[in-house]
């Protein structure tokens, strides 16, 4: 286990290094990108431009600039945004991360539970009309774009049906931290959770159903039946566990991507000040310090999520456990 963690950490550092260099180079290789312009305001004199270039180290060589930025990001932690110098990058990320976490974690719980339920139910009901019905439902879930679904949810819960007994509990858009008021935190996030999870429920249910049907023809499932086990036990104990391997690897990737800022559309639609929104804003303004910070943050979680997936893998399948 210790070896595993060390190996993974080295991998993580390598990934972070590669991704920061890449982001840095892309930024400076993009034609028309000149942070000085954003920093210097309208119609600057050549002297102002030169002064600002010097102040931000933009007149240094690229490797030095890269190292300076990393130093301000990780060591002095006082890197500021190019566009808004009052915006310190590190605190911006640390205050946005809990919002994203709250959103993605809740959605993940919902989507894992309902995807497993739907997938297993579809297999149990195979041969009846309900199996294709469930799968069509799943397909509909996959096909609804999250921004559209979110807007519809807002329209219904905030406006059209807000004053009925159904949705009068839905608070206005926005976010309340868990630490300040857990109940309000929950109420604010219920609709975003459901909205974000719909796509994944549909997708994961279909994947799980396909895997279960694959596994059904395995010899060991026949052995389990030959032992006289009930169908329920065969399904839940012998088929589900091996089928979850694909499910888990997909989950690791999706979860990492979402925590890393991929829940952007949901955050924007529901006015949640999370990392996705921060990334989006910085990308629009080509604000390198913030982009850099969010990219590092995202890569970090994707890598961590993958490491966790490997651990869960090993739990699920003894064949890949390190000796």
């Amino acid at each position, binding site marked *: 286990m210790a070896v595993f963690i060390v190996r993974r950490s080295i991998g993580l550092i390598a990934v972070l290094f590669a991704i920061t260099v890449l982001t840095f180079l892309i930024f400076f290789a993009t034609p028309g990108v000149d942070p000085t312009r954003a920093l210097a305001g309208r119609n600057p004199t050549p002297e102002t431009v030169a002064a600002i270039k010097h102040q931000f180290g933009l007149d240094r060589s690229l490797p030095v600039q890269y190292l300076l930025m990393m130093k301000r990001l990780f060591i002095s932690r006082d890197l500021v945004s190019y566009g808004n110098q009052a915006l310190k990058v590190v605190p911006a990320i640390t205050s946005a991360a809990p919002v994203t976490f709250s959103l993605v974690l809740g959605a993940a719980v919902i989507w894992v539970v309902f995807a497993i339920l739907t997938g297993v139910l579809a297999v149990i009901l195979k041969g009846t009309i309900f199996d294709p019905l469930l799968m069509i439902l799943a397909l509909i879930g996959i096909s609804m774009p999250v921004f559209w679904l979110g807007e519809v949810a807002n329209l219904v819960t905030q406006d059209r049906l807000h004053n009925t007994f159904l949705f009068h509990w839905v608070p206005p858009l926005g976010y309340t931290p868990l630490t300040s008021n857990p109940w309000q935190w929950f109420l604010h996030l219920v609709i975003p959770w459901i909205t974000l999870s719909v796509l994944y429920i549909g997708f994961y249910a279909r994947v799980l159903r396909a895997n279960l049907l694959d596994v059904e023809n395995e*010899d060991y499932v026949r*052995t389990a039946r*030959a032992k*006289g*086990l009930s*169908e329920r036990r065969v399904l839940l104990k012998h088929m589900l566990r*091996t089928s979850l391997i694909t499910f888990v690897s997909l989950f690791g990737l999706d979860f990492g991507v979402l925590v890393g800022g991929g829940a952007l559309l949901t955050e924007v639609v529901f006015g949640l000040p999370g990392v996705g929104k921060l990334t989006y804003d910085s990308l629009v303004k080509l604000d390198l310090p913030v982009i850099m910070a969010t990219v590092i943050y995202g890569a970090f979680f994707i890598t961590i999520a993958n490491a966790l997936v490997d651990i869960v893998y090993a739990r*699920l399948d*003894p*064949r890949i456990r390190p000796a």
Partner: protein
Amino acid sequence: MPQPLLEVKDLRVSFRTEDGVVKAVDGVSFTLSPREVLGIVGESGSGKSVTMMSVLRLINDPNMLVSGEVLYKGRDLMKLGKGQMQEVRGDEIAMIFQDPMTSLNPVYRIGDQICEGILTHQDIDKPAARKRAVELLQQVGIPHAGSRVDDFPHQFSGGMRQRAMIAMALANNPDVLIADEPTTALDVTIQAQIIELIDKLKDDFDSAVVLITHDLGVVADIADRIAVMYAGRVVEFGAKRDLFYDPQHPYTWGLLGSIPRLDRPKASRLYSIEGTPPSLISPPQGCKFRPRCPHAFEKCMEEPELVSRVDKRDHLDRCWLDPATKRVTRYNTIEGGRAA
């Protein structure tokens, strides 16, 4: 004849496919007495596995059609409810399969997989079941069973896995053990050990055994009676001795002739049965072996019944040839036509 333990009557299994209905098992009947070893021999696709899987109702194909009776201790298994059938499986009739590499669930410990069957059918607690699992592994010859019980299947070799499968099948002391080509996927040296093991354990556990194989050599040692299957039906059925020394069906001769033998002058070539098995969708008219049979004549266009045609009442076959003629003609096939 003692009261049969298992009696299969006119079992027919067919599968609807895009090309037509495949008659995989076409009217198979046999009986199995307590503690008897019945060998079912035939080439791939002859319906031997499908027959025995249907006995346990292990085929879950929506396109499958089954008819016939499977009487186990007088109860028709075909008419049992799902729950009742589950009580029979693994408890009264157990089955082991061809490929031990894939027949054990890779994610559970060997011991847990054995215990699972015990706990399903017996009213004992987990530690007792585990103790029993260790005993069983010892009985099937797994060394250090006490620690190997916690191994995962991938830590076992192929032969050990098949032993574990046998342990699992015998866990509830079944009256019938169905072994579906238990040695096919194993090394030749291991094959003999597994067959010996089954032979020994059937006595220890007082179980009857149905041994499915494509290799007459495998059943030669331990079977009491042998059924030879071809194209979904039994073509010859009799005591082992009769079948080996007085085989009646040309297909049986072909099988016997294709076994290499050390006790006879060496044939220059082993006999091989010409042609391929017939289509099970539109089988040939009359005797199903007719197109491949070197001795076929006009009468073979009629379907021969499975009846006794020799002086032994329980030696049955489906062949129109005159038994006296057969004694002469079969010699070449079995002993090697071009023997030096």
